[in-house]
């Protein structure tokens, strides 16, 4: 069959895959086209060597998503669970803090640096907890732009931070942190995750303070591991409800006739033989701005064709070690460890430089993922991921600087563990160019769909409903493409509304409802 109600282009974890699952379950006939063999490739696991298991993307915020309940993912094999230790932060001088599932233990960690800051953090979580679901609904699980939802998200954020709305909208992330916390260490520890620019620019007034607070909600909800089972569960839901997963297939053209998007021309990977998939009602592109623009040809529009995705990207180092990396005892227990700056001043300077083409910023915000805590394997094969940056894509000459970066990365690890070189069984560096080569939708190696430093805040992202009739987008939209499945949820919402199939008895779960039901978390402190 080559005729469907909806054709979804690109089965990425955040956008295309959940959108297709929602729409198929809601009764649409959906074809989901994926270039790779597997959907959700950036979220699969792999055994680099037998006994050393890695995740492509070692974060998991899916517990926040209504999809866990709506799509009954646990019944399809999703194995999400909350670990006792979620993450830790460590500075060059050895100061550290660990986040536990138990709020009291987290409080004790921060109290080592400042009792007042520990109390402040607990109070913040205390105010965030009861508002988290609604805040997430307004800020994340709403198809933006939506002024009313944005206003409510700002109001809720102001309540959580106990400050006037007007002040919040004038504030940078740095100013907010300096106002909240007295301890130099705590400010740095609480900057590591938002420094990724997952939402926006921490130095931008208004945007920066909101970015920090919303990142705090993510930090409270992280439950690493089980990534591949999420992808597979979404695939199973889609196929079990009758969806057509067109694997190993490349999109050549998005068809627009008489102003309406009517389908897509596709071909098997590595082949020039083409097929047309007709869409009676909608085409949803999860291909990213650049590829969507190419596939649309003359039907693109300026915001799409001029979209930027080259500023904040990552380099990654996979290591298989013969023993775990040597870290302080409590930090060593954490699946994720952020290596933070030496001082708050250095942190702020790093944020400032991160708006530039300075390649040194890759070595200022580093994240370790100790996979042996998530997927216990062989004791002599420890899977360690090191994420460097964010940093700039710069001139794109990543093959030319691969060796230099590799040496700097090893030197950085030797600062933590002087003998680490002697226990490296395998090492591989993946550059921003490699990320882009791996997934053409991740333009310039940017897997979350756009820039924030370049001014792509909530109202400036690409629209879910595009200017081309019956063409919808789920990449480059707000919010960015993360494992909370929000872009796909929102895209499915707008398509379902336009098709008149949104009102489903199962499509009613609240954001964070899985976390609320699963166990006490720091948000319940």
């Amino acid at each position, binding site marked *: 069959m080559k005729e469907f109600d909806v054709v979804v282009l690109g089965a990425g974890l955040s956008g295309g895959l959940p959108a297709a699952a929602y729409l198929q379950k809601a009764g649409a006939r959906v074809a989901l086209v994926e270039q790779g063999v597997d959907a959700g490739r950036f979220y699969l696991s*792999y055994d680099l060597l037998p006994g050393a298991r890695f995740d492509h993307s070692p974060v998991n915020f899916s517990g926040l998503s209504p999809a866990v309940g709506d799509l009954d993912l646990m019944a399809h*094999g999703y194995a999400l669970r909350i670990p006792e230790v979620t993450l830790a932060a460590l500075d060059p001088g050895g100061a550290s803090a660990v986040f536990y599932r138990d709020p009291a233990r987290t409080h004790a960690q921060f109290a080592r640096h400042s009792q007042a800051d520990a109390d402040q953090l607990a109070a913040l979580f205390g105010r965030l907890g009861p508002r988290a679901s609604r805040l997430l609904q307004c800020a994340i699980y709403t198809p933006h732009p939506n002024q009313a939802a944005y206003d409510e998200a700002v109001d809720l954020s102001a309540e959580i931070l106990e400050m006037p709305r007007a002040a919040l909208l004038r504030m940078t992330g740095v100013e907010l942190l300096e106002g909240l916390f007295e301890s130099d260490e705590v400010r740095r520890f609480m900057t590591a995750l938002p420094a990724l620019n997952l939402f926006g620019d921490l130095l931008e007034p208004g945007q920066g303070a909101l970015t920090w607070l919303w990142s705090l909600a993510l930090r409270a909800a992280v439950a690493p591991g089980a990534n591949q089972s999420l992808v597979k569960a979404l695939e199973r839901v889609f196929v079990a409800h009758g969806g057509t997963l067109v694997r190993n297939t490349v999109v050549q053209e998005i068809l627009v006739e008489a102003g309406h998007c009517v389908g897509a021309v596709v071909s098997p990977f590595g082949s020039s033989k083409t097929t047309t998939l007709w869409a009676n009602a909608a085409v949803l592109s999860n291909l990213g701005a650049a590829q969507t623009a190419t596939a649309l040809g003359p039907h693109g529009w300026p915001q799409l064709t001029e979209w930027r995705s080259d500023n904040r990207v990552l380099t990654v180092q996979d290591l298989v070690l013969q023993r775990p990396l040597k870290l302080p005892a409590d930090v060593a227990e954490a699946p994720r460890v952020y290596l933070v700056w030496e001082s708050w001043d250095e942190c702020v300077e790093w944020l400032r430089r991160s708006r530039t083409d300075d390649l040194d910023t890759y070595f200022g915000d580093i994240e370790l993922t100790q996979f042996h805590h998530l997927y216990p394997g062989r004791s002599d094969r420890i899977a360690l991921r090191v994420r460097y940056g964010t940093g700039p894509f710069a001139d794109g000459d990543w093959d030319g600087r691969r060796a230099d970066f590799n040496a700097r990365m090893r030197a950085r690890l030797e600062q933590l563990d002087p003998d680490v070189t002697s226990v490296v069984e395998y090492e591989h560096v993946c550059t921003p160019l490699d990320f882009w080569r791996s997934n053409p939708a991740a333009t310039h190696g940017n897997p979350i769909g756009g820039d924030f430093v370049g001014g792509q805040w909530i109202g400036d992202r690409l629209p879910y409903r595009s200017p081309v009739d019956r063409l919808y987008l789920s990449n480059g939209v707000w919010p960015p493409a993360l494992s909370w499945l929000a872009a796909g949820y929102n895209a499915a919402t707008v398509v379902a509304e336009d098709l008149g199939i949104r009102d489903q008895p199962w499509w009613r779960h609240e954001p964070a409802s899985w976390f609320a039901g699963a166990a006490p978390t720091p948000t319940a402190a």
Partner: protein
Amino acid sequence: MVRGRRADPDRRVSALEIVGGGFAGLVRAVDESRRGGRVEYVEPGLRAGGAMVSETFLSPFRFNLGPSLVARPPLPSLHVLEPQLLLDVAGTTLSRAALRSGGGSALRAAFGVLLGIDPAAPDAEARTAAACAEIDDLVLVAGGNGLAVACLIDELVGAGSTVVEGVGSADTAPHRGTGLGTCRLFIGSRGPAPERKALATAVGFSDDASLRSALDALRAGAATDPVGFLVSNAHLDANSVDETLWSAVFQGVLPFGATVSRDDYVDRVLSAFGIDPAAVIFRLLWLPEDTGEALQ
């Protein structure tokens, strides 16, 4: 492992529970489903399908973790490739047609090694002859072996069965084989690819006699020089971002437990095929202890 039928409270029909079993286990599940039965397929490993796994690792390349040439998968709709020129040994080639006709090729032992047959095994000749007789069913899966597995799973799930993968531990003990085994070096590179006339280009021997001699030296622990084939991965290559990328898999022979420096072995393989190490983006060596594939 087939565990028998158990009640399915939702559907009020019994389901056949199958645990693992590699690709054969998956095919067994599909056969049951096609007969109208419901299956609960549980895969302890990361992916269903045994050796029929395609993997990208953290790289822009696709590789088959197991052999490239596989028995035709039981999905008529799956696009497969049938390379006509299979082997290039020091400039002498072995074609599919030659194997099909059973003509006395001097390279049959090498073809056997490509399929995992030890020429020193007592029944090696018979097994190689059997493989040659079934040459029309030995194919490459366009897109990768994992595509066959994924499509079979889609069929199962679409028919109402359940499939859950990765339920077991990542703790995989090293394979403790004896004798010779298969190693695989996954190579992803940019720039000019080595010129290859056939699917598999040999290194470390020039004919049947030198192959047997090289394998004997490996077996005796007297050498660890690369002996094997650089297998084209062209059917899995196509990169719209960087058209200069190419990949290959070196399928070699080493003794289980051989003391080799991985870096040194990789360098020697690259050198043997004239591959510029500086152009290589991705390199990963699985020793026989990792592949678990004994030459038999």
